[in-house]
């Protein structure tokens, strides 16, 4: 069974030869450490920013080399910049991205991170030139990866969730202020971003991806960041539209979110195909999620990123064993950390996670 077949089986709630293993992302410094290659260009997890196609190819090459070296089963890659787009730089050296987010460079991870916004009030949105999903170039990295993978690993497209997108586009404080003061405006923005995403979903489906992983958080450690009424009125109907678009093209749709998602799980189980992160530090128990939703949700995550950074190898092996024992029987489980391998994670712990996954994740699960 090859990597891709293993993932497809798990996504269809069948038991493959062993539990598939993946990471949603690895920070550049750690990928360099793993591969021995260097990548001198800054990236962003929230937004496509690399405009030079040779640099973008290098980005995918580094990631492919890293994923192959680790022996992952699933390869997620995000969108590229549309053809001809150039980022605007502020006098302070910050970058304005495609969505009006002002981004600062985090020197440690060499990643641009949203920090501020070009929007001062909702009226600015009417003047904003909204990105067009029909423009060329968005799927450059995906097409490049697809050509190079030749079906070896399953291919996932990362797509930013409309809620997280708008939250970052306006900054969290302005988003919250306008959510309470001008709810119809925020609803319109989320609908617009969902429309954009639906256009992109058609494009990524044409490339031949196996699944979409929707990035961007809904929750913090305490629970949902906004009231459940806002989820049910605005966020979930637009999530459902995107999932329907993916399903029409035969593509599975996984929702990533950090934090304590327990109160959102009944709704999510009715909308998406799976959940990624399942953050144990925020109180998510993968065994309990498996018992209640294991026939409807593919489960990905639950190896604590805090433990990958702070604990020892033996602790990680025990955590992987617990995760496999609780979530792998019957399929529908893909082993991964509860977010990504961050620059501060201990590489020996990350590698121990994969090694333990291969050792204890062989079906039938014997723990």
């Amino acid at each position: 069974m090859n990597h891709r077949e293993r993932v497809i089986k798990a996504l269809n709630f069948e038991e493959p030869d062993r539990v598939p293993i993946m990471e949603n992302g690895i920070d550049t410094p750690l990928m360099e450490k793993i591969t021995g290659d260097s990548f001198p260009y800054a990236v962003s997890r929230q937004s496509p920013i690399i405009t030079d196609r040779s640099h973008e190819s290098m980005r995918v090459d580094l990631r492919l080399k890293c994923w192959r070296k680790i022996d992952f089963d699933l390869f997620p890659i995000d969108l590229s910049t549309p053809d001809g787009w150039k980022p605007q730089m502020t006098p302070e050296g910050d970058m304005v991205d495609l969505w009006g987010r002002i981004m600062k460079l985090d020197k440690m991870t060499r990643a641009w991170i949203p920090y501020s916004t070009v929007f001062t009030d909702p009226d600015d949105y009417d003047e904003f030139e909204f990105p067009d999903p029909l423009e060329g170039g968005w799927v450059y990295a995906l097409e490049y990866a697809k050509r190079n993978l030749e079906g070896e690993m399953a291919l996932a497209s990362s797509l930013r969730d409309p809620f997280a997108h708008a939250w970052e586009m306006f900054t969290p404080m302005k988003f919250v202020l306008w959510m309470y003061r001008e709810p119809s405006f925020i609803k319109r923005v989320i609908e617009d971003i969902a429309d954009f995403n639906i256009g992109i979903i058609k494009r990524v489906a044409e490339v031949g991806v196996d699944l979409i992983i929707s990035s961007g958080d809904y929750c913090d450690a305490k629970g949902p960041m906004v009231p459940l009424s806002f989820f049910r009125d605005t966020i979930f109907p637009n999530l459902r539209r995107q999932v329907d678009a993916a399903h029409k093209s035969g593509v599975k749709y996984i929702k990533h979110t950090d934090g304590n998602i327990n109160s959102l799980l009944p709704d999510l189980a009715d909308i998406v195909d799976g959940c990624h992160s399942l953050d144990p530090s925020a109180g998510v128990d993968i065994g309990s999620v498996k018992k209640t939703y294991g026939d409807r949700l593919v489960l990905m995550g639950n190896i604590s990123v805090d433990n990958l950074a702070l604990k020892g190898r033996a602790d990680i092996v025990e955590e992987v064993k617990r995760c496999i024992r609780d979530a792998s029987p019957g399929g529908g489980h893909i082993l991964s950390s509860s977010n990504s391998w961050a620059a501060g994670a201990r590489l020996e712990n990350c590698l121990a996670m994969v090694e333990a996954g291969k050792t204890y994740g062989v079906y039938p699960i014997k723990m």
Partner: protein
Amino acid sequence: MSLPKSLRELILGLADISEIKDLIDNELRSHKNPQLIVDELSQTLREVGDKYERGELFLSELMMIGYLASEAASNLKPHLSGAGKRSRGKTVMGTVRGDIHDVGKNIVVMMLQADGWEVIDLGVDVPPEEFVEAIRKEKPVILGLSALLTSTLEEMRNVIKALEKSGLRDKVKVIVGGRPITRMIAKEMGADGYADDSVAAIRAVREMARRGGGT
């Protein structure tokens, strides 16, 4: 006819800021002691903290309340005199180098301002030398270091080491805050207090002030 709402009710109900300002203006025109309004605001924030801890408020509601309370406090400030005009103490806040997340820190800043503290906000991605310079210049009673990423915990240690090296460590109480912080991590890095979310941070600052870290 319904009774006019109190400041507490308006803030907890996420009223428009103009309603809150109107209420404060009316109370001041009726010669209410502004310090009593400050006390009511402070009491409301304690209740908000408790509600958030019990999971009765969403993050978005906490952020809105922080914004409204901070605006209300700014409105009241010119009317305070004597002891009331003095802040509870000065604090310096910042997200450490390598981390540019600021949602939690900004809530803490708004809440502290509303609670009568003077806050010097150094922003995000702040290097240790900038914290040292701010402590030297501003002479705060409390320094709050924020981080969201586990990978930036080391930077918090670096700030504390830099304070020790410059002979300023015993001049200020250090509170470390953020998602990855635990009591053990805070103690191990030599901090005086810790908080794993913004409400806990406000509580830690108040507690430290009660024990003699503030005025």
